């Protein structure tokens, strides 16, 4: 079963043509070629960003399977709508917006499902947050402390209401501006600031045992 899967994976990986492989083509050229139906160019283009998109989705959804689905949906949408990309922003910004919207929709859907489930049973769902924290220093105590804090922050972020979480995530984790967050979430800048403030207060409450 596993061997078959590995084999399928190997077969599915599209090898770029020699021309594309040997030349580090500028992004604008790849976009142009991809728009003209060159699949290898599209493949090269997305290969630069797919890990970033997966990471973004994972940090927002805290779930590998969901993150993989978000990446898949994002790439399909990018492929379908590439011709509509007017190059007013960078390709990554455009792809990033698609990914954030796909991830947020998934988050909303999941929140609804959890609400329905919670009528019958006690659903926690956020207990198994993966701990993929790289070593930062050589000091075990420092590493342990950092991990502890990061786990707590992740958990707190996963537990605050979704409308605050998406704003906090985009502003404080991803580092976007209020205006950019407002554009992505289709909110006013004032609403972004308000949610950001409330969300941070939620986090403060949840982390009061650790950060004071």
């Amino acid at each position: 079963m596993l061997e078959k899967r590995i084999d399928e994976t190997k077969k599915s990986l599209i090898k770029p043509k020699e021309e594309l492989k040997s030349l580090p083509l500028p992004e604008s050229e790849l976009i142009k070629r991809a728009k003209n139906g060159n699949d290898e160019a599209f493949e090269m283009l997305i290969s630069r960003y797919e890990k970033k998109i997966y990471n973004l989705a994972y940090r927002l959804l805290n779930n590998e399977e969901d993150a993989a689905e978000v990446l898949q949906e994002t790439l399909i949408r990018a492929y379908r709508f590439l011709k509509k990309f007017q190059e007013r922003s960078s390709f990554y910004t455009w792809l990033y917006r698609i990914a954030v919207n796909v991830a947020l929709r998934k988050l909303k859907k999941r929140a609804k499902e959890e609400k329905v489930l919670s009528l019958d049973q006690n659903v926690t769902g956020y207990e198994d947050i993966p701990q993929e924290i790289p070593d930062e220093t050589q000091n075990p105590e420092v590493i342990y402390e950092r991990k502890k804090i990061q786990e707590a922050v992740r958990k707190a972020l996963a537990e605050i209401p979704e409308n605050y979480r998406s704003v906090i995530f985009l502003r404080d984790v991803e580092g976007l501006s209020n205006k950019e967050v407002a554009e992505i979430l289709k909110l006013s800048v004032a609403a972004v600031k308000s949610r950001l403030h409330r969300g941070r207060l939620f986090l403060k409450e949840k982390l009061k045992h650790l950060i004071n």
Partner: protein
Amino acid sequence: MKKKRIEYNCEVFQEYLVDYLDEDLPAELSIELEKHRMVCRECARLVKTLRRIIYELKKLSYYETEESVVARIHTSLKIKRWKRK
């Protein structure tokens, strides 16, 4: 337009807190809020805690994707199939 006299209490301080933390306020307003922070222990503590939380959020570790994950996604993403969708 005539300027309205504002009393810089905790409520007003919190109203501008997002911009205060971003250091994105007109100098005059920023000074008034700073004056309030210096005399209000509660607001000073709030600023300190929120700054720490923002710092921790920024430092949330970057999740390192394994190559196998991306490869698995590729399996279900053959470009030629996308065209037919």
